[in-house]
């Protein structure tokens, strides 16, 4: 598998937050979802990949190249979608597009026009008058209109209604019809990831908890529920995390087979969602 991004032992320290010794790869031709609670380091990681901030140590390569000496070439091939685009607020949609387009040799006006229509972006409206969702759609249209091979999206679904979130996943699978494209997107709304993501990188407290194929993750965890009487040490030890109330408990285990063999007849065992896994994993005390 060819890697669009590879990071080796990357660290970045801030006051009160550090990204610690991150090594990971983002394979070409697939969708990777970057998940984690707020403040876990998702945006820092994306900024490092975009070379918007610099690592204290470690190596980052994009399209097999380091940024030194290749920055222009690499960036021309990335479409970046982010939460709070630094748009000139008094500019119109058209005016802003006219500012951005010349930066790209591969700008495709027809493509932009198609997305503008699909997203129903009003050309003459000022940026500051756009809703949050509209700004995101505009950012998407700009990012997708210069034939970039790597689409990076920081929280693209925040501020979007459920209908457009569905449209977005459809749009992403359109892009993935071309096996040379790579998509990375961060989110804390995991429903989209449950559907179309190929790989999930889960980050918490500045550390990568896991970075694996989504199907593998879903298959190796189970959601278990049962009466409190069953929740003794032997079972607790097998749970990555759990939530207990007066009327029972629910938790996630990565030792499905053993739990099923020992306690199966007393528990309800279900396929977990990414959200279940994230929730119980982040609550884990180590």
């Amino acid at each position, binding site marked *: 598998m060819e890697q669009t991004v590879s990071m080796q032992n990357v660290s970045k320290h801030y006051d009160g937050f550090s990204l610690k010794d991150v090594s990971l790869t983002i394979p070409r031709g697939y969708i990777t979802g970057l998940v984690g609670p707020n403040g876990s380091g998702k945006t820092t990681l994306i900024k490092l990949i975009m070379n918007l901030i610099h690592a204290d140590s470690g190596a980052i390569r994009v399209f097999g190249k380091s940024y030194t000496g290749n920055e222009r070439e690499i960036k021309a091939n990335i479409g970046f979608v982010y939460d709070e685009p630094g748009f000139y607020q008094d500019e119109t949609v058209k005016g802003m597009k006219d500012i951005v387009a010349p930066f790209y040799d591969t700008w495709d006006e027809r493509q932009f026009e198609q997305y503008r229509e699909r997203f129903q972006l009003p050309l003459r409206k000022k940026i500051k008058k756009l809703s949050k969702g509209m700004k995101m759609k505009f950012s998407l249209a700009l990012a997708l209109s210069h034939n970039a091979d790597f689409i990076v999206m920081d929280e693209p679904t925040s501020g979007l209604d459920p209908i457009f979130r569905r449209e977005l996943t459809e749009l992403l*699978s359109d892009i993935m019809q071309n*096996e040379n494209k790579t998509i990375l997107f961060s989110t804390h709304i995991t429903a989209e990831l449950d*559907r179309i*993501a190929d*790989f999930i990188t889960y980050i918490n407290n500045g550390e990568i908890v896991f970075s694996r194929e989504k199907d593998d993750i879903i298959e190796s965890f189970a959601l278990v529920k049962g009466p409190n009487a069953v929740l003794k040490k032997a079972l607790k030890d097998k749970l990555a995390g759990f939530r207990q109330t007066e009327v029972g408990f629910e938790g996630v285990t990565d030792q499905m087979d053993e739990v099923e063999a020992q306690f199966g007849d007393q528990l309800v065992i279900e396929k977990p969602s990414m959200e279940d896994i994230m929730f119980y994993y982040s609550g884990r005390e180590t």
Partner: protein
Amino acid sequence: MKAGVTVNIILSNRSKEPIYVQIKEQIKQAVMNQTLKPGDSLPSIRKLAKDLQVSVITTKRAYEELEKEGFIESVVGKGSFVAGKTDEWVREQQLKQIDEKLEAAVSKGKVIGLSLAELREMLELIYGEEE
């Protein structure tokens, strides 16, 4: 797909079976009941992932397993097709089903004391009616 050939794949999130297994089994089922015939082309891995709104890895895995089990063949640059020898497999499966049904009929017959001759007579009668 050839013109007019379509296969329905309906995924359930409630099912305990992983999504790739559901896809695999439903394609197998379509081969079995001959909705899909040898030589029919299947949607590409990426197209199927888009249609089902699942990950590319999921459909890829389903196709890889179908290929390993001999149900489909993939040709680089051309896509995936229902394998030729599935004919044999379909026949085998059908024979197996007939076998099971006959076995059930025989054991039921034995319970009420039917002889082989009597059973044969019934079979001939039914076979004749069908023709």
